[in-house]
């Protein structure tokens, strides 16, 4: 077993075993894009990547079906998440990725300080094992990768003083999830500086201790990326996301679930051969939400830093 793999395994166990007593909190990763931030860079035997990303997610749009509704409740809701992710390639075809999240939710209703609620703590973690039968090389334009993973409720999910706060305000879901993941890329030139990328994932969400289950979720992303020289790159893509209604004791919860289509632009800069910076946004294009009214994404932006060796 190589030294890099041992380092990777140690990191994974540190992440997963980590609890933060100062934030003895809760968990619900609502709005935390775990699978879109997981680092899947390591693709060649012995490669090890570690990345850190943050995302600010504003959740203030009030939507009925496909239409925006004026919100006169003076309500503000946002989430700030931090994700530490690592990936290691054991062989040229088999690799493993893992991440741990730290989540802070803010909710303000009205102008009084009594209406402000903040929760924070370790969120969920994910382990994803990937098999890549086909990859982009100077002699092949296609990449296909398949993955199987588990979402692990590493944080607490019972935040609240006299009563437990709603699930979307918990830093972790409190429940396991099973993940199917796949990715395909096509390089338009031999140098692979222009690529079409698409990836899809499906998560089956189980019930937490309070018999609450987030709706099963499907994500499909498609986009184009372009590297300019060896330093700069930009990308643009669309992400379609659909979730079933959340459930409690097996019964659907009203005003949960729906479909979203977001535009995701991004830029990247390679500081060195090993260090990369990235900046991306998430802008709603269309949505069709279940139920009468739902608060949903207004916009999101994220910053990432990754190091490979």
């Amino acid at each position, binding site marked *: *077993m*190589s030294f890099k*793999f041992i380092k990777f395994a140690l990191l994974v166990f540190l992440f997963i075993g980590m609890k933060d007593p100062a934030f003895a909190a809760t968990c619900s990763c609502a709005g935390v894009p775990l699978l879109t931030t997981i680092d899947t860079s390591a*693709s*060649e*035997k012995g490669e090890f990547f570690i990345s850190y990303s943050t995302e600010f997610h504003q959740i203030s749009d009030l939507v009925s079906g496909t239409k925006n509704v004026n919100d006169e409740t003076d309500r503000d809701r946002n989430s700030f998440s931090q994700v530490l992710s690592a990936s290691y390639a*054991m*062989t*040229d075809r*088999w690799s*493993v990725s893992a991440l741990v999240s730290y989540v802070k939710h803010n909710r303000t209703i009205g102008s009084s300080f009594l209406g402000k609620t903040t929760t924070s703590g370790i969120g969920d973690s994910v*382990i994803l*094992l990937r098999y890549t039968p086909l*990859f982009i*090389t*100077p*002699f092949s334009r296609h990449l296909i990768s398949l993955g*199987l*993973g*588990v*979402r*692990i409720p590493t944080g607490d999910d019972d935040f609240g003083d006299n009563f437990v706060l709603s699930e979307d305000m918990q830093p972790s879901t409190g429940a*396991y*999830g*099973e993940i199917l993941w796949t990715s395909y890329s096509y390089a338009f*030139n*031999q*140098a692979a500086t222009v690529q079409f990328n698409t990836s899809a994932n499906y998560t089956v969400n*189980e019930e937490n201790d309070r018999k609450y289950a987030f709706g099963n979720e499907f994500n499909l992303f498609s986009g184009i990326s372009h590297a300019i*020289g*060896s330093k700069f790159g930009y990308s643009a893509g669309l992400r379609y996301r659909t979730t079933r209604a959340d459930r409690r004791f097996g019964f659907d919860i009203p005003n949960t679930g729906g479909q979203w289509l977001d535009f995701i632009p991004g830029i990247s800069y390679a500081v060195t*051969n090993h260090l990369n910076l990235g900046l991306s946004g998430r802008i709603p294009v269309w949505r069709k939400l279940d139920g009468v009214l739902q608060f949903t994404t207004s916009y999101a932006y994220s910053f990432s830093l990754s190091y490979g060796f």
Partner: protein
Amino acid sequence: MASDLLKLLSLMLLLAQPVLAQESAPLFSGVDLNTKKQINLSDFRGKVVFVDFWASWCAPCRASLPAYDQMRQEIGTEEFEIIAINVDENTEDGLKFLAEHPVSYPVLADPEGDIGISYGIRSLPRSFLLDRNGQITATYKSFKEGDEIKLKQEIEVLLKQ
């Protein structure tokens, strides 16, 4: 169900661990783009050989080819040789690059990737150091100025063996 899946993933992780072993360099042959002579890797058995894959679109190759040429002149070719493999889909692009960055060592064209695939090339530049018995002793995945100094030291160690 998720905990069973976690156990399965752990098992697959262990099974996916590679077996580490020193590999024999795949043999290849071709025509030198500079001299038009036939080149066979097997003819260099007994010498330390540095096999370098490159392409005209590979930015670090602009620096690596002249650096390797200089290194070859310093080491000499009695017991050492460099063989470069150009993987441009259009070999003309490689020839244009060589006109701007000429080298004195053999350069073979591999537009179809026959040699590159046998060496498992995933990205460029990529090079391999072979001992006198044709065993791959080191692989290099990138190039930056100054890398040739460490490489030269590694070659000199192999030359003493």
